[in-house]
């Protein structure tokens, strides 16, 4: 059954998109991530104009994060104060990101920056995660004790001014690092069409040293706010949000996420992390390595007249 997307102005196979949403939702429920980094490349591959794919993903990511943040909230797994500070940074970042994306489209360099961002961020994060999780798996095999976790927080985190108490995260730190982190993720979310959980979660664990119990919930909370702002801005400034596309993906995504969350309990945490790291690494390489190969067609049409 084909469905015509009013904003993308292409027709797509509706069951295929729902199935894609379900698959990405499954992965996202399994690993507790948004899954935008997987979905956006596939949409572009299916022939959706990249600008529409990136913008519509904001709506999709906001909706799927909303569906999981409610249950984290009930389990007291959301630090709303930290989430609010991150989101304040995220708001600035997404305004900046939407404008940067607009400017890059005018220059014709949006594709390059998107591909490079995927290669660099997914490549680095995937490689680090893979290394860390393989280490953990090997230690478990050898029954070796986990290395003492460096619980010493980086001193610069305490040297900065504007300190604030975050009771639920048991932190008393400056608001500057979370603001900067939020802004950075906001820019990424606008440019890459992702929620940014894959940057946010490791940064909250390793830089801010938040307790693991609130990391995923808080990251989802921040992602909702950032992607909500990005989505409205993309629609207002670039007219590229296709609500029909976002809804199709959402239908599958919500169902898939539920099964994913159930399936995740059957695996060990480090095995899940290793698997996720591999997926992240593959997507990053797939998106980025195209830049190094000689293209079949040296010319490309750019969407939009950019006038």
């Amino acid at each position, binding site marked *: 059954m084909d469905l015509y997307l009013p904003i993308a102005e292409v027709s797509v196979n509706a069951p295929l998109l729902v199935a894609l949403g379900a698959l990405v939702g499954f992965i996202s429920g399994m690993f507790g991530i948004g899954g935008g980094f997987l979905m956006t490349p596939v949409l572009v591959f299916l022939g959706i104009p990249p600008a529409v794919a990136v913008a519509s993903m904001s709506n999709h990511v906001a909706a799927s994060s*909303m569906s999981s943040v409610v249950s984290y909230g009930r389990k007291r797994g959301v630090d709303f104060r930290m989430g609010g500070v991150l989101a304040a940074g995220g708001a600035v970042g997404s305004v900046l990101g939407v404008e940067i994306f607009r400017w890059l489209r005018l220059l014709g360099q949006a594709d390059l920056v998107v591909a490079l961002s995927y290669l660099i961020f997914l490549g680095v994060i995937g490689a680090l995660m893979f290394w860390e999780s393989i280490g953990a798996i090997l230690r478990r095999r050898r029954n070796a004790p986990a290395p003492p976790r460096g619980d010493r927080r980086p001193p610069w985190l305490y040297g900065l001014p504007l300190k604030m108490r975050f009771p639920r995260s048991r932190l008393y730190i400056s608001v500057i690092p979370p603001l900067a982190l939020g802004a950075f993720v906001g820019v990424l979310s606008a440019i890459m069409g992702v929620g940014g959980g894959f940057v946010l979660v490791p940064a909250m664990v390793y830089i801010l040293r938040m307790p693991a119990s609130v990391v995923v919930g808080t990251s989802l909370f921040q992602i909702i706010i950032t992607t909500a702002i990005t989505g409205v801005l993309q629609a207002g400034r670039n007219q590229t949000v296709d609500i029909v596309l976002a809804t199709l993906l959402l239908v599958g995504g919500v169902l898939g996420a539920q099964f994913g969350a159930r399936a995740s309990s059957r695996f060990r945490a480090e095995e899940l992390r290793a698997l996720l790291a591999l997926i992240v690494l593959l997507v990053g390489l797939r998106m980025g390595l195209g830049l190094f190969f000689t293209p079949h067609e040296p010319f490309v049409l750019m969407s939009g007249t950019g006038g």
Partner: protein
Amino acid sequence: MAAALPPAAAHPPAISAALTETRVRVNSDFRGDQIVLYGAVFDPLSRPNDVVVIVRGPDEPVRIARKSRVAGLWVNSRPVVFQGAPGFYIAASTRPLDDIARFGVLRRLGAGVDHLAINAPAEQRTETRYGVRDVVVSRLGSDYLDWRRAVVRLKEAQRLYAVDEHGVRFVDKGLFRAEIALPAEAPIGKYDVRILLFQNGQPVAEKERILTVEEVGAARALYLWAHQRPWSYGLAAMAFALAAGWAASTVFRRD
């Protein structure tokens, strides 16, 4: 009636044509359409006829970039804007266009993708060369044709430009039929359909018809909303997405 053959000037050949469908409605299950055109040639002298049907969609400037290697990476050049390019273009004819008329005639009529009047005015400047003033020089230089051909090639790959050398068929004496394939990606707007009759390599009669491609129903409403009131559309779309996410979490509540 007239026993003797009338002089050609008194009875010029004429052409008549009609689209079986003048409005294409793009709704949520639009997957492209086939437009059928019927027409007749009236020529008391029964000279050999050639018919060319040109369908031209609304103009859409084309932005195109060329990839080049910079430090090992394939990077887009600065995009070049080509003006005067139609968003959709098909030239269907009874024979290959080059057999029907000469280069100059086709160029003047803009018949065939090679003869579309598209150019990149922003890349042009006028200067004095060899003492001649106002010589138009393109910054694209000798590559200009490569760029132009790439526009056509990429549009052909999207099925938005096409040349159908046998797209017009005579089904009976003087009666012809043409079929135009409209892909789902065809732009919205008014299409100009020109039906040209050629004899001896010259256009001798012409008819124009209008084909309207319009979005209808929900697709139309959403498109208009998103483009005319983008902020309210953006807010509503996001509110809908958040509500859907929240609703899903209550449905699948597990505790």
